[in-house]
């Protein structure tokens, strides 16, 4: 009895502690150019938009993350507009880059979502250039959709189990434009497809996505915006349970319009990637078709 009380106290102490990680001291300023901003816009809409683009205002003020397990708490994607209080105007370019790659924000707090440690430098620069641009989608907006709150279990999970920031690696080069398969693999990584289409949020390997448990086999338990529970789809080329019967055109239609094979309507939290260029969708499809087909029924 005494022992279990001590264990409980230790857990409570650990959970209430806040770990502060070292922050970046780099001073980098991303140059602005129309071309970079436009490229950044497409990337930001595809990689960040699914969570941060608000469907009502069509600006990057964030949105409630209904798909996160409620047992962990209540989560909201942050405001990425240029607002000084709620947005990212306080962040330097280097701090944004550091946050995206490592998960550590400017206060030294680890945010265990949206990690992109393998994003190429030129893509990250394009995203930052877009976020600093005068595009209406990132105009300063002081709206706050909500503040994330962790439950006790959420705190426990993110303090003990998942409290490991990614290493800050620079000099990452984008795959060559003509290498379809490498590009597909890269896009599955930076768009975060494998975060949901694998088997567990706590077993994601951000550094080596293909080592993630159940990589692209689906099965992750999710909740829709209506509260219904279901599992993420299997995206391996298995004919019975995956996307083995999909043509490139059917796959592109599903990704870009939300309408899958046989007019099946994809449901939240699957997002619609209408801004993703056709060649990139094709690259993702080609890459997925090279994966080992895995028979894994996900009930969809």
């Amino acid at each position: 009895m005494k022992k279990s009380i001590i264990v409980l106290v230790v857990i409570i102490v650990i959970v209430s502690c806040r770990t502060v990680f070292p922050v970046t001291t780099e001073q980098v300023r991303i140059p602005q150019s129309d071309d970079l901003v436009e490229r950044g816009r497409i990337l930001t809409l595809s990689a960040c938009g699914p969570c941060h683009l608000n469907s009502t205002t069509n600006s990057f003020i964030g949105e409630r993350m209904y798909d996160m397990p409620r047992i962990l708490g209540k989560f909201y994607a942050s405001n990425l507009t240029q607002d000084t209080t709620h947005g990212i105007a306080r962040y330097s370019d280097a701090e944004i880059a550091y946050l995206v790659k490592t998960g550590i924000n400017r206060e030294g707090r680890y945010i265990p979502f949206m990690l992109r440690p393998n994003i190429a430098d030129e893509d990250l620069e394009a995203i930052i250039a877009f976020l600093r641009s005068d595009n209406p989608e990132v105009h300063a907006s002081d709206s706050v959709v909500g503040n994330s709150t962790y439950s006790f279990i959420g705190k426990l999970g993110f303090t003990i189990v998942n409290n490991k920031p990614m290493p800050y690696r620079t000099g990452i080069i984008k795959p060559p434009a003509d290498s379809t398969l490498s590009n597909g693999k890269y896009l599955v990584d930076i768009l975060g497809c494998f975060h949901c289409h694998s088997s567990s949020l706590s077993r994601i390997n951000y550094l080596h996505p293909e080592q993630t448990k159940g990589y692209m086999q689906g099965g992750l338990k999710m909740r829709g915006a209506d509260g219904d529970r279901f599992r993420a789809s299997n995206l391996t080329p298995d004919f019975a349970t995956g996307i083995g019967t999909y043509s490139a055109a059917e796959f592109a239609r599903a990704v870009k319009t939300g309408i899958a094979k046989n007019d099946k309507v994809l449901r939240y939290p699957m997002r619609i990637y209408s801004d993703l260029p056709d060649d990139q969708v094709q690259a993702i499809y080609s890459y997925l078709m090279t994966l080992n087909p895995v028979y894994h029924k996900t009930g969809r």
Partner: protein
Amino acid sequence: MRTIHFIPAGITLFFFLSFTLDTQSFLLINNHFNDHTTKQTDGKTLYYKYNCKSCHGKSGTGPMGNLRKAVEKYTDDQMRAYIRKPSDFNNKKMPAFANVIPDKDLTVLIQYVRELAVSR
């Protein structure tokens, strides 16, 4: 361990009721059920079939888009255009239903959405 005994008991009860219930009344129950569901032609069925519920919820007030506000803002023709191609209305998150929902279904669906908005 007790629950194991419930299974054979349940099966026995099922067969007992199947054989002893009056067949006609059993059918009437089914017909009544069918009458009730066809009345909504099935706006509600279409609402579920096209997965509207997953974002807009059962009552249309779902978190990803409140349809009660939409029906106040848009005419039927505008709603038809919106559902077919949401990106024309600056909505990048809703699937485009052009060539998915036939015109006839779309009319019924919009009618159902309007009914949802007044049923508080």
